């Protein structure tokens, strides 16, 4: 059974059709990179998978369960298995870096003692290279650092499924490389099903087991990077040429 299965999903915002019959699957241990031009619905797709938006038609299944008709508390149980990194990290700006990472642990791991929670937070921040910034506020750290903290927070509950929205957007090449290495390392260690939305073809090539390219409300091609390279579809050729 796939970890994430999107089947014939359609989504429109008013008169603007964003997704029109998209179908994708991701299994544990796989990383799917979703590429496409700006405005093709990549982030909307992630929001549908985590349940922040509902599709107009079609289904989004997490381990076989369609999440579209679930209540907030029912979908909460499924979200416990998922981690989400927002495009701009979405850190809680009134909490420190350590408190941000501890937030999901405080709510879902109430059996943990304070010292256990503190150790876990330090471990998570060390994994993303931010263990020297525990007491800093989000406004005191750079965008790239905020993304690292957001990634640590997304990993707090040891998710089976990781959703990453533009993890390297706005970062310099060295920082992007570090984030890519981190994602690969996490994949090796935790064997998660990951979906990464990105514009960065190099990043997609580095971390993904397969790539889906979106255009005009649907998936144009899905496969390995070599499949994209050998594709005769004009849009795919143009996308690779410009990247």
């Amino acid at each position, binding site marked *: 059974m796939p970890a994430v299965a999107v089947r014939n999903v359609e989504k429109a915002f008013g008169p603007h059709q964003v997704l029109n019959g998209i179908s994708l699957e991701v299994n544990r241990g796989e990383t799917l990179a979703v590429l496409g031009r700006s405005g093709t619905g990549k982030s909307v797709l992630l*929001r549908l998978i*985590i349940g*922040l938006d509902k599709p107009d038609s079609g289904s989004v299944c997490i381990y076989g369960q369609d999440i579209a008709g679930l209540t*907030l*508390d029912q979908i*909460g*149980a499924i*979200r*416990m298995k*998922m981690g*989400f990194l*927002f495009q*701009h990290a*979405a*850190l*809680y*700006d009134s909490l420190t870096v350590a408190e941000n990472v501890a*937030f*999901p642990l405080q*709510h*879902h791991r*109430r059996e943990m003692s304070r010292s256990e929670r503190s150790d876990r937070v330090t471990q998570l921040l060390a994994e993303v290279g931010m263990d020297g910034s525990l007491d800093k506020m989000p406004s005191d750290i750079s965008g790239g650092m905020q993304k690292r903290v957001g990634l640590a*927070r997304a990993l707090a*509950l040891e998710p089976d499924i990781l959703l990453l929205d533009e993890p390297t957007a706005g970062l310099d090449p060295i920082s992007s490389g570090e984030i890519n290495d981190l994602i690969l390392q996490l994949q090796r260690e935790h064997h998660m099903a990951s979906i990464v939305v990105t514009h960065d073809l190099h990043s997609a090539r580095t971390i993904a087991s397969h790539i889906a390219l979106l255009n005009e409300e649907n998936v144009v091609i899905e496969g390995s990077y070599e499949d994209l390279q050998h594709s005769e579809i004009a849009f795919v050729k143009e996308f690779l040429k410009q990247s």
Partner: protein
Amino acid sequence: MTERQITAAAGFPQPGRDAVLMSSAYHSVADMIAEPFEWFGNLGIFFWQVVRAAVTPPYEWRELVRQLDEVGSKSLPLVALAGAAVGVVISLEARYSLSRFGAKSLFPATLVYTVIQVMGPIITGLVVSGRVGAGMGAELASMKVTEQIDAIEASAINPYRLLAATRILACILMLPLLTLAADACGLLTGWFAQALVEPLSFHQFIEAGFKGATFNAFLPPTFKTTVYGLIIGLIACFQGMRTRGGAEGVGRAATNSVVLASLFLILADVVLVKFILVVFP
């Protein structure tokens, strides 16, 4: 092609300019009439989601305590000051009016009943609406536009339970206590303002003011402020959590929280006063 172009191309007779203007005006008026109903409908749905979240565990006790401090302790100085000022104003006005009609002996009762039954609750409500309503509306709106509320939801935490229910409950619990504080300050300064002109001990003032009074005279007006708290918390959270539009949206949410909460608070007072007069004669 527009609908007009399509029908023209198909050879259908075109509506005159007047008909088009009338149709446009009709739709504008229809939207204007529908908008308030839509707002109330969405508010009702929001309220139901909050109630459902509030009564199901896990409960957010830590956040509730934090909000009790935010709404209660931090509003106390402002509410006390407002109550004190109102007490002086009523004292000055009442002394003048009662003197004209030869009823100076009624001053203590006038001050006590006016402060506790009328001015204390409404002034407390309006002050808290301004301070807490704007703060809550802006805070939640800011969280909404920066995706922090989405992040809370993505972390499998119910934002209605964590953010809205705690704030609304804090407002409901704190308003009566803040009203008592405002009443106390108003009576104290009202007595003091009178005592500066005519010697009157505080004991005499209290005895005369509460002579013949029953709990029915004072408890219902104080506890009606729980409804004020519900209005302030509900509208501030509703406006904040459905904000769109960046900084402009945050500003609009803060302003609307105060304006709408104050308006509904005053309208609710009209209904509640009548209700109290009927149920607690």
